[in-house]
């Protein structure tokens, strides 16, 4: 496949020869290469890296333990300010029930993330993790994105490595790559998320985590205010850290979901998603796994991602709250994920967070109830406050009132 652009043709040859793309070369491909060529190149790189034709997925549950957040990013439709009537913190028992449900459908991990809640001290997280590990020793905790770790570091007034060390001692298994948005401070300033973590701070958390022996993922939320060269900058910074530590297991990109957010605007298109995914496969030559984001793109474009560089269909999720709050409510249960993988000509295999293969799909072995909608953190109107919260010191007046003896 040749194009009318000699520069693009030369870059296609460079990719096929195994060359590493520079910033300017990546930008040329991203902005000038025909969509099918980008897809073809990404598919070739994917096939070379994963020649078995296996496409993986994980059965886990995406739980948001609290929606109360002081960060106030203007692209987020999920958070509630301190004192909001519909703010919540999940109790330990609620989380145990969610884990029971997850294990029942073959799941082996919680993806646990939440708002920056000033009334949840580091000890709450440590106790939660210990309690989970005590009840479910083999169950994995993929928890707390870098901005949450930074928030805890500030709250507890201890260094990030110490937070990571304490969380690992309590049972943390790996760190999800959320909160990266676009790792360019100009962009983060406009998104009102610079204060939760600068690009350097976000990457530093991951650097410390990798040095401590944790594996992590890395994400990119594009489609807000960033320019194409800033998306490339994000990829380059990820590639640099990966060269240094090798700690990222996977890269996941998705488009900003604008509904109900303060920022608003329009969502990046499906073709932009496929082009961005393909480019990530070409630039991130040191990251093994790329996920297809069916939860933001829908099942159809998500599946098409498998022809544009992705080798993983992400998670069954079971529960999702953040993207749903911004207007996207797609659902794929294990049967549907497996069907889509096979329909695209690949071999479906379950994996864990480290991308170790766990085996064939559960649905091949036994009947699993169909799931037609992802669960929510809590039923609407449930304003209950977990009993155990009284054991932890609140910082805000609202939190103190909630925890005062009655």
């Amino acid at each position, binding site marked *: *496949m040749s194009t009318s652009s000699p520069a693009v043709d030369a870059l296609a040859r460079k990719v096929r020869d195994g060359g590493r793309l520079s910033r300017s070369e990546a930008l040329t491909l991203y902005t000038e290469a*025909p*969509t*099918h060529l980008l*897809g*073809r190149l990404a*598919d070739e790189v994917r096939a070379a890296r994963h020649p078995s034709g296996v496409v993986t997925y994980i059965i886990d549950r995406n739980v948001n333990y609290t929606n109360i957040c002081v960060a106030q990013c203007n692209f987020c439709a999920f958070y509630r300010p301190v004192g909001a009537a519909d703010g919540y913190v999940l109790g330990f028992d609620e989380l145990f029930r969610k884990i029971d449900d997850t294990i029942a459908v073959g799941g082996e991990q919680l993806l646990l993330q939440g708002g920056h809640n000033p009334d949840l001290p580091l000890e709450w997280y440590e106790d939660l993790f210990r309690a989970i590990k005590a009840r479910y020793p083999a169950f994995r905790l993929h928890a707390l994105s870098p901005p949450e770790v930074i928030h805890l570091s500030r709250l507890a007034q201890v260094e990030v490595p110490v937070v990571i060390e304490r969380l690992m001692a309590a049972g943390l298994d790996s760190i999800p790559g959320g909160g990266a948005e676009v790792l360019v401070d100009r962009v983060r300033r406009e998104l009102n998320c610079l204060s939760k973590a600068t690009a350097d701070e976000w990457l530093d958390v991951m650097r410390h985590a990798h040095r401590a022996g944790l594996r992590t993922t890395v994400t990119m939320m594009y489609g807000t205010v960033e320019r194409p060269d800033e998306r490339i900058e994000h990829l380059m910074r990820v590639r640099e850290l990966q060269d240094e530590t090798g700690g990222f297991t996977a890269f996941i990109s998705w488009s900003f979901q*604008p*509904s109900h957010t303060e920022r*608003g*605007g*329009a969502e*990046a*298109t*499906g*073709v*932009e*998603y*496929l082009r961005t995914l393909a480019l990530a496969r070409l630039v991130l030559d040191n990251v093994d796994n790329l996920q297809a984001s069916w939860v933001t*793109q*829908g*099942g*159809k*474009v*998500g*599946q*098409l991602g498998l*022809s544009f560089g992705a080798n993983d269909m992400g998670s069954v999720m079971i529960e999702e709250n953040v993207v749903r709050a911004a207007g996207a409510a797609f659902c794929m249960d294990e049967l549907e994920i497996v*069907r*889509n993988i096979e*329909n*695209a*000509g690949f071999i479906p295999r379950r994996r864990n967070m480290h991308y170790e293969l766990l085996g064939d799909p559960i649905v091949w072995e036994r009947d699993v109830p169909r799931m037609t909608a992802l669960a929510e953190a809590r039923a609407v109107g449930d304003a209950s406050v977990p009993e155990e919260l009284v054991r932890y010191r609140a910082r805000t007046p609202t939190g103190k009132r909630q925890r005062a003896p009655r």
Partner: protein
Amino acid sequence: MSDDASLAELRETLAADGGLEEAQVRLLASADLLSLGVLADEARRRRHGQQATFVRVAEVAVDASAVETPGRAREIRVTGVPASVDAAETAVRAVAGQGVPVTGFALHDLMGLANGHAAEFARLLRVLGDAGLVAVSELTVDRTVDPESAVAVVADAGLAVSRLTIQDARGDSRLEWVRTVAGWSFPPKAVRAFAPLPRAESGATPESEPATGYDDVRQVALSRLLVDNIDSIQVDWALHGPKLAQVALTFGADDIDGVPAVDTDELGPRRTSVEDVRRNIRAASFTPVERDGGFESVTR
């Protein structure tokens, strides 16, 4: 079919407008998605260049008691099954004369009104044409008896068929319908578009698996490559959603139907449907061109 020689041979045959042999069709049907997409995109660009058309449609129920059509509509489409010839004629007259092309009805419903009598069917079409109808909205290929003859009667009455649709097809039958349509002969411009994605909500029952993204874009691409007798390959903005409709443009589709005539402007002008359509077309590297129900470009 990543096999370069096979790809090059197919490309030459398609570019020369030559008919495909059975073995080549089988090769196409088994091709990997991106190779198929490249060929379909080339075929689509040979016909339509950089342009991708769309139409804003106001749907009016045939039995609507009050008719108010939005000013931004470029096609007024009468929907539903008319109870009688008079009801069909009345519905068309109620919306005609506004300077917006009026289309309406499914061809098999009109044939039903004529009780299968050819002469009665031809008379009905002339009545509707006189009332202001410019085209029958759709001919559903899996519900219409002898579609080629039916289209000829429509053309004789001075009307067109806006698009051929497939109501319900799964698995291999999806490709079979494409091949069937490709084998039909129509008078020039009698059929304006082929919408190859089945309209029935797949996956509605446990035994009917929903179509996947691969299924859909493959169907669109094969349609562009095999269906030489219809100019446009169409997807539906409202039915298929913006993302799939946009991706389909890069796999051989050139026309987007079903853009709402009423903009939802609650989130500002960037979120209005027509702006979203234009933005999606541009992001797919095509030039958006609005058309009307008669498939004429709208310049105002």
